[in-house]
């Protein structure tokens, strides 16, 4: 199933790019180049072949780990992807962690103080949060935390001096593991705004759904029994009720995690964060076919992997599904 989806993604993007007017070769060649030069370039990138042959060549390449050569950057696509993907992965993982922690804590707090003015306030704020997309959060952070009260770096992933000092492209994780906290702090500071912008819409959905699941669980018999046994309210909510609410919440919020990955495209662009998202926009604008195809495939693979992980998580959390 997952393979079929990925194959479908590859076909769709290939079709889309083939119907596109405009010649990618025309964009990379100096004005006044001879027809012979152009033909030679087209042949080098396989653009002179019929559609099915091009698709076959590309698919065969992918299966052999060859993603082709980027037209605009003139570099191996796989190399570019392995350079940029870690930045996006770090950003997405940090954003997910923020969303789960913030969403979980708020939902638990809201359940603890249910039927008070505090809960009504959480609901009101959450109602606003549900409406605001990552794009608007990102721009609001640029304005408030980057310009009006400039406490955070506005763009990039790290100070320019950092790059040479690390051996992988996982700046944050590597510097944390190797104990270089100066670099970790710098990378984290660059990540705060884009990660928050991605996290808040997801956190909003988690709050709404988890809070509802928690309040449903709170009136179940096992919670009443635990309460009679003298368990504290905090342990009732964060222990008993949470254990039963997490599964359904994950099942209902699953699709939002894939939205977060999609959100990296524009959020990375806004903060000039050097991941695969910002690279994808440039690739499209430059009509860089091999790079677009490689990037779309990576995004598709991420989508499929996240869905598999969520399905596995939901099954592991639901005893009734475990043997199904």
């Amino acid at each position, binding site marked *: 199933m997952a393979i079929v989806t990925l194959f479908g993604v590859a076909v*769709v993007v290939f079709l889309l790019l083939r119907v596109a007017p405009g010649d990618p070769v025309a964009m990379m060649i100096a004005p006044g180049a001879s027809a012979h030069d152009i033909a030679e370039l087209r042949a080098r990138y396989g653009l002179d072949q019929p559609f099915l042959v091009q698709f076959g060549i590309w698919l065969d390449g992918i299966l052999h780990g060859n993603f082709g050569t980027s037209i605009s950057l003139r570099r191996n696509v796989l190399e570019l992807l392995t350079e940029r993907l870690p930045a996006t992965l770090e950003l997405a993982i940090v954003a997910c962690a923020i969303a789960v922690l913030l969403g979980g804590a708020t939902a638990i707090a809201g359940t603890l103080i249910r039927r008070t003015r505090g809960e009504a306030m959480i609901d009101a704020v959450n109602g606003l949060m549900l409406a*605001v997309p990552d794009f608007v959060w990102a721009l609001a952070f640029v304005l408030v935390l980057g310009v009006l009260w400039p406490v955070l770096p506005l763009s990039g992933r790290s100070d320019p001096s950092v790059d040479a000092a690390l051996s992988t492209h996982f700046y944050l994780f590597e510097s944390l593991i190797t104990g270089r906290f100066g670099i970790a702090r710098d990378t984290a500071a660059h990540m705060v705004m884009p990660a928050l912008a991605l996290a808040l819409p997801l956190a909003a959905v988690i709050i709404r759904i988890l809070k509802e699941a928690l309040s449903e669980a709170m009136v179940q018999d096992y919670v009443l029994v635990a309460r009679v046994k003298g368990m504290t309210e905090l342990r009732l909510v964060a222990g008993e009720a949470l254990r039963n609410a997490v599964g359904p919440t994950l099942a209902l919020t699953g699709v939002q995690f894939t939205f977060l990955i999609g959100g990296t495209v524009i959020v990375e662009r806004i903060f000039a964060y050097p991941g695969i998202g910002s690279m994808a926009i440039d690739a499209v604008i430059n009509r860089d076919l091999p790079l677009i195809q490689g990037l779309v495939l990576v995004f598709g693979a991420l989508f499929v992997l996240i869905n598999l992980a969520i399905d596995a998580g939901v099954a592991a959390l639901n005893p009734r599904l475990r043997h199904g």
Partner: protein
Amino acid sequence: MAEALLDAPSPIATSRHADRNRIRALLAQPKVVFAGGFILFLIMLAVFAPLIAPRDPLEQDLLAGTLPPMGFTGAEPGFLLGTDDLGRDVLSRLIFGTRIALIVAFVASALAALLGTLLGLFAGYFRGATDAAVSRLVEIWMAFPPVLLSILVVAIMGAGVGSVIAAIAIIDWTRFARVVRTETMAQAQADYVVAARVLGFGRLAILFREVLPNVAPVLLALLTLEMGIAVIVEAILSFVGLSVSSDTPTWGGMIAQGRQIIHQAWWVFAAPLAALFATVLAFNQVGDGLRRALDPVMQR
């Protein structure tokens, strides 16, 4: 974002007199009235922009460049929200910007709804191979980051309002297809559908005359939410430089321009951002209110 909450089918309960109760339930929510009023206000601004805007949105006055909004030192009367680096009036550009925002909001979401509803109805009612094909297509579609796909579509079709509208319809039909499919599956089990079948109604007649009206409430809520999404997508495409030509003021274009001069004139960035925020919030509140008013379970 809130459309995730619509994925579950709503309980079946529809009758004529219930409609009046629903409208009453809708208007009993102050935030819906307020948000709806704001959208009406935006529509007025868009329609009467030339009469309302204090200046020509394209008129440049380099001697009056980067004037701050009223209340800040250096502000000049007549420029309520200040001017940009070319001396163009921010308020007037903001007012004219509602035009593109609302055209895209209404047309693009209607098209996305049309496409998604048809596919969702067929998938949910006919099941089998139709459902498998539509569901597979939805899954493939969702594996694309929506922003990337919209940029791709606009890059292919060429920048312009038409391309932006097409891009939104081509991408966001899945939101409608998913929800309408689930809803149709639930409705297709209902007694009234069985009765219509017994009476010998054709399959398409049942689908469009019996099932569709009962799916409509959910559809309406989803459509309103989609309008907010469409406004955002248009702003994103303008921000990337792929929407309409730079002669036409758009909020996204203003934001992109404001980003360039944000350290000299933050208001050029802040004003359209605030407009965008308020508009998305308004559509979302109305959509959420509709969902509450139309869902019998939530009326408790």
